[in-house]
């Protein structure tokens, strides 16, 4: 009955979560969208945005940030990946089996968060590099050329920070979504919550004071990691802004961990 002689592998929550996410049909589609949608969105916008600066005058547009605008689509997909990793299980009830195999529930949540962050980070960084490389030539065709817009030096720190930072932002949003989905336990509530708190502040900000607050202290602040120039409508430093978004994500996960330990699972 007890088979102590048989050698058993070590239990690995992380491996279990990898198997789940790679075995689900929906998530693989989501990975594909995360890789392609930002590139297509960036290309579409940049190809239809001509430069309005007269030749010879230094321009004030942030051309690197503009080639990365597709992240607006990327963060939505990242929110879906993060939220479904826990929400799917809450919906089907499989979370009970998961917690039966791993009674230390915080380990499960942290494993899900790690997997979602790892995947969205890798795909996010690749897709933001591709976005830049695809969109920049289209942008040149629209008049964003020297002398008004000198070609960005891809070996210098600022453009690299903007491009890699876009991938980091994508991963931060996935983490935020894991946290929110753990708290609300419903994908259909978690995704709109994440998207709304992330993007709406940027749209709703009307007065300058509100805009400044939104740019510095809401999850929307994370987009400042893409900034490569000084502009009056840029309110947060790049790392400050990303740090704020990450802080919201960490807070959401922390609340999720506390609740997951306490609550009975839903049937």
């Amino acid at each position, binding site marked *: 009955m007890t088979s102590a002689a048989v050698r058993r*592998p070590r*239990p690995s*929550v992380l491996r279990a979560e990898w198997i789940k996410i790679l*075995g*689900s049909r929906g998530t693989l589609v989501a990975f594909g969208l995360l890789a392609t949608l930002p590139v297509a969105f960036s290309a579409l916008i940049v190809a239809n945005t001509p430069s309005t600066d007269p030749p010879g005058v230094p321009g004030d547009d942030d051309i690197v940030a503009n080639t990365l605008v597709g992240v607006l689509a990327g963060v939505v997909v990242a929110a879906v990946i993060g939220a479904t990793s826990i929400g799917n299980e809450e919906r089907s009830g499989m979370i009970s*089996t998961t917690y039966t*195999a791993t009674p230390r529930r915080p380990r499960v949540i942290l494993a899900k968060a790690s997997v979602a962050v790892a995947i969205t980070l890798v795909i996010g960084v690749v897709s933001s590099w591709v976005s830049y490389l695809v969109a920049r030539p289209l942008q040149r065709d629209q008049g964003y050329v020297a002398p008004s817009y000198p070609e960005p030096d891809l070996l210098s720190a600022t453009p690299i920070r903007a491009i890699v930072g876009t991938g980091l932002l994508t991963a931060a949003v996935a983490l935020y979504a894991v946290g929110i989905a753990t708290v609300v336990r419903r994908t259909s509530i978690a995704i709109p919550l994440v998207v709304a708190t992330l993007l709406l502040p940027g749209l709703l900000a009307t007065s300058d004071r509100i805009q400044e607050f939104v740019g510095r202290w809401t999850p929307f602040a994370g987009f400042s990691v893409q900034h490569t120039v000084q502009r009056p409508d840029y309110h947060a430093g790049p790392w400050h802004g990303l740090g704020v978004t990450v802080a919201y994500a960490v807070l959401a996960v922390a609340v999720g961990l506390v609740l997951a330990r306490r609550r009975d699972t839903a*049937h």
Partner: protein
Amino acid sequence: MRSDLPPPGLTFEALTKRFGSVVALDDVTFTVPPGAVTVLVGPNGSGKTTLMRIVLGLAGPTAGRALVAGQRYRHLHNPLTRIGALLDATAVNPGLTGRTHLRWLAAAGGIPTGRADALLESVGLSTAARRRVGGWSLGMKQRLGVAVALLGDPPVLMLDEPMNGLDPEGMVWFRGLVRNLRDEGRTVLLSSHLMRELEGIADRVVVIHHGRIAADAGIDSLLAEGVGTSGPPTLEDVYLRLVTTTEQVVTAPEQVRP
């Protein structure tokens, strides 16, 4: 019961669970011994599933405790190898294949992957294993649920209404499986709301009604209780009498309480 004997497979000590003002379990005390099939019977909503969820730590008791081999579930080392459970067979992400489902569970439980494939074969799912569970029948999901419970080769098994959705062939298969598990000396706790399907596999019946134990007796003494009605007594007669008259607790003489 001598104190140096190993603890019974499952122990319920004054277990109470309230959901707001609803009392789901009310001071439930009984033990489930190894080498026998104990059946928990009661109408829908009587507390059977809640009891099993508390064993697995999925729900916390309001008072009292449930122990697996003398320990709380969350203190078990490699819990899947100590107790196997089937609660809701339909609770699987529909997008996963049966094989993937067993494989992630094996990874989480520290169980060799080869065991997952062998089990799929032995529960009769080898042809369906690579298809997504969303398209499976309830009977197939029940078989997968049984495979999940058996994955860690545990000495204690706890199955909630495992015969729902099984076809006649599946019933025969399941009865044989349960008898084998008992004969191997394992502790088996089954639940059901259909008495008829239990005849022939139950050694002992615990009737639960409104969250309380209405009867707890060996199968023979329960059937003897039913004598007096016309024809040979069936478990169903006994059960219906118990859940309609209630309050009176039948306890067989051989019943051992901790």
